[in-house]
């Protein structure tokens, strides 16, 4: 144990550096993003399925739609309430939720999710503010 003081100093420095993000950001939790709805989405009141389901599981339904439309060639979706929708990301989802930056990106950025939908699917033109 001749190098005791060096080892302990080294360990302390290592811990400080490794834990830097934690002590630097303590007590500064980033608030979860608030989703903004467009007027059209507000007026429609309900999405394809319930709000809670859509919030948590929208990726499941998008995946189902993709599979069914592209591979099965079936394009209409009737929800349990009997309302029909054309299964299309750009033309149905983004028709109501045309504010992609405030609706999709905000949460995806917060959760660090990077879906590659928009490499091919076309974003609605940016609304002029």
């Amino acid at each position, binding site marked *: 144990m001749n190098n005791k003081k060096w080892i302990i100093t080294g360990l302390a420095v290592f811990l400080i550096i490794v834990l830097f993000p934690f002590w630097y950001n303590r007590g500064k939790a980033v608030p979860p993003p608030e989703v903004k709805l467009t007027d059209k989405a507000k007026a429609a009141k309900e999405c394809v399925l319930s709000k809670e389901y859509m919030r948590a599981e929208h990726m499941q339904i998008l995946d189902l739609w*993709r599979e069914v439309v*592209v591979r099965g060639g079936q394009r209409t979706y009737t929800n349990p309430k009997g309302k029909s929708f054309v299964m299309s990301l750009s033309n149905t989802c983004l028709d109501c939720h045309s504010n992609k930056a405030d609706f999709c990106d905000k949460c995806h950025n917060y959760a660090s999710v990077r879906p590659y939908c928009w490499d091919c699917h*076309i974003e609605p033109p940016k609304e002029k503010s």
Partner: protein
Amino acid sequence: MDTSRRRLLQLLGLSAAALSAPPVLDALAAAPPAAEPKIGTAKEALTAKQWAMVIDTRQFKKEDDVLPLIEACHKIHNVPKIDFKRWEIKWIWSTEYQHAFSGTASTRFLSEEVEHRPFLVLCNHCENPPCVRACPTKATFKRESDGIVMMDFHRCIGCRFCMAACPFGARSFNYRDPRPFIKETNQLFPTRMKGVVEKCNFCNERLAEGKLPACVEASDGKLKFGDLFDEKSEVRELIKTNYTIRRKVNLGTEPAVYYIV
């Protein structure tokens, strides 16, 4: 503690039964499920067993006659216009008789009119498509419902085996991000991304809405579209009453695009 073997086994059996009971009871007690969402097709959708096209090439005299058809297709499908030949993307284009039908029909000493007539070529939506067999991810597949050879761009990994397998050169690879090369984007149809293969899709998105393919619509009746396996369809009538040829039939892929020459 004294426990007989019999007692231990009884206890084990009882606990196993107790552990497995809740899921069974849950399933039995579950309320009848709420109405299931339904998935279907629109009422106006056009259907067929095997879509086919008949091209009356006698009515195409010069390049200007085919350009509007190509334009109509490429515009609604966001096909980029890249001038550099090696990066070119095309869904439907025109070529000369000798290129379209070499190996199928004689291309020597042709009549001048036929030699210079533009022949529209596109994906043949073969009944026995070699591209589908080549695809390692099933990104390209033959749709059971109507015989369209479709592409699922989500799955395409850009290996280009399908391009090597297709004897008609109907497939193009996106060597570049296509977006900067699209002049006017059709908002209703997606573009593609760099690294996927693309080709004609027989306008399946239009068929689903009850519309004919864009090239057929723009052709003023020079192109006909219908069900090959329906004896009474217009395409069958045309094939029966006219002499038609198809590209490279000797390969056995059974192309579904017929040419009246």
